[in-house]
């Protein structure tokens, strides 16, 4: 259900350079329907944030987009040259790693495993190291290259995974933000990196977020999800929608306003 007129126009025609349409996505686990008829139009060069209560199916939507979870409906992608039906290159930043924290897997190992065919346990070439370092420097994480994955803080890990997802630069970037464990500075740095990305590359960013404040500040478009799309549009429009207040309550809004007043005061 669109929240404004612009949205209606966009659903009829692609208006950006490249665009992604999610059409009638439904996901069922056993007898539980987790997602029902999700229709979204994702715009290139924009940060689309998906918000919603726990169990709303946010992560499931990302997994369905990745093709990992069985779903009905389809993902239609049109690239900048107007070619329909090509399958997009998708980058993915997971919410957390399954890897044991004590595992001796370094950041460089992860890059080699992703980008090279030569076995990680046998070789490490200088060429790969240089490339990995370039990718990491883009997200200000070059100094982490020899650290163990398990020894990174939440924010550091998120930046490393972002660098990995951007190598090669995808057409759609999916980010599943951790519920907790990232310090405020890390989050700011992360969102600033995303803003730079939007400007420099031709890609659509879909972000599952739990931090409403930062979404309001940085997202170009917000999707309120709860089993299906409840509301979708510009952040201001969605955040003032009554269904938004019903789901999240008033508490967070007061906090945001208080913060803003503080900023003005200081």
């Amino acid at each position, binding site marked *: 259900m669109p929240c404004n007129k612009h949205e209606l126009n966009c659903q009829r025609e692609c208006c950006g350079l490249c665009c992604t349409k999610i059409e009638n996505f439904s996901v069922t*686990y056993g007898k539980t329907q987790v997602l029902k008829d999700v229709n979204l139009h994702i715009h290139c060069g924009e940060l689309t944030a998906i918000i919603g209560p726990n169990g709303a199916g946010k992560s499931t939507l*990302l*997994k369905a987009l*990745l*093709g*990992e979870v069985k779903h009905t409906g389809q993902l239609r992608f049109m690239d900048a040259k107007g070619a329909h039906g090509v399958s997009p290159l*998708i*980058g*993915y930043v*997971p919410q*957390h*790693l*399954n*890897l*044991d924290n*004590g*595992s*001796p*897997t*370094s950041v*460089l*190992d*992860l890059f*080699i*495993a*992703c980008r*090279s*065919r030569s*076995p*990680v*346990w*046998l070789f*490490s070439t200088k060429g790969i190291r240089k490339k990995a370092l370039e990718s990491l420097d883009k997200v200000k994480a070059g100094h982490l290259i*020899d*650290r*163990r*994955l398990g*020894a990174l803080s939440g924010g550091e890990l998120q930046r490393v*995974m972002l660098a*990995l*997802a951007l190598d090669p630069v995808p057409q759609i970037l*999916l980010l599943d933000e951790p519920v907790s464990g990232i310090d405020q500075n890390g989050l700011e740095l992360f969102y600033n990196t995303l803003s730079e990305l939007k400007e420099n590359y031709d890609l659509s960013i879909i972000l599952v977020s739990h931090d409403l404040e930062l979404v309001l500040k940085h997202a170009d478009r917000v999707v309120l999800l709860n089993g299906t799309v409840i509301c979708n549009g510009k952040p201001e429009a969605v955040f003032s929608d009554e269904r938004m207040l019903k789901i999240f309550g008033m508490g967070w809004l007061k906090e945001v306003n208080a913060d803003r007043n503080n900023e003005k005061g200081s």
Partner: protein
Amino acid sequence: MMELWYALVDWLLPFEWADADKLLFMKNALLAVLLISPIFGILGTMIVNNRMAFFSDALGHGAFTGIAIGSFLGFLMPLWAAIFFSIVFSLAITVIKNKSRGSTDTIIGVFSSTAIAIGLVLMSLRSGMGKYSGYLVGDLLSITPLDILMLLGVLVAVIVLWLALFNQMLLVSVNQSLAGSRGIDTLYIDILFTTAIAVIVTVAIQWIGLLLINSLLVLPAAAARNITINIRQYHLASILIAIFSGITGLILSYYLDTSTGATIVLVSALCYFTTLTFKARFA
């Protein structure tokens, strides 16, 4: 081939093993240890990384049951029946684990206990337990040159698997969705890896024994990760610790007249606790 090895041992080792043709079984065992411990060292890195220690333990039980089924059905070589059963067993666990959203621990526990119970019932039904108790503890000293040839084949297979697919296996263990987004078929990789463990555990169980086999898979890698910070160091340390424990354990068991498998495991455990004291420096 074996003559060459015997001559080499006679020339290299100055102590009583080298006495003419007397202790051929020790020379066989030494060669077997040199082949089998790198296999355990390599596979163990991934088992420990994936927190699959319980899973590989269950596979040992599956292999035991496979041998019981094999000899119950009257095969001359129960090993082939055992390998077949272990693969089916590991596939069942892997597929169910991937499909279900329940706790992996419980699923593995159910499979493992069912398997061991079937194995024990079959064995007691036919001929009493005594004949099979060898599979519980194993006997490394009984290994024959033909067995050793098979071990060589297994070692080569593991190295080929590791050369071809390690990168993908590492990605799957880091995060399945991430691996999927990079075009990796995660179920296929999972199945290949667990099949490899199943085959190796089954082949090795007659020499190492059900009770100890998992310790040999887990301990060298667990020790190695205490003192390493990347994958290459991890593999090197794990293989070296496995070989060191294997040889030291074999020699000690000869002089102390103790069970070879258990002595090797004890040396590995000692390595683990020693490296544990250095862990803080590698955090």
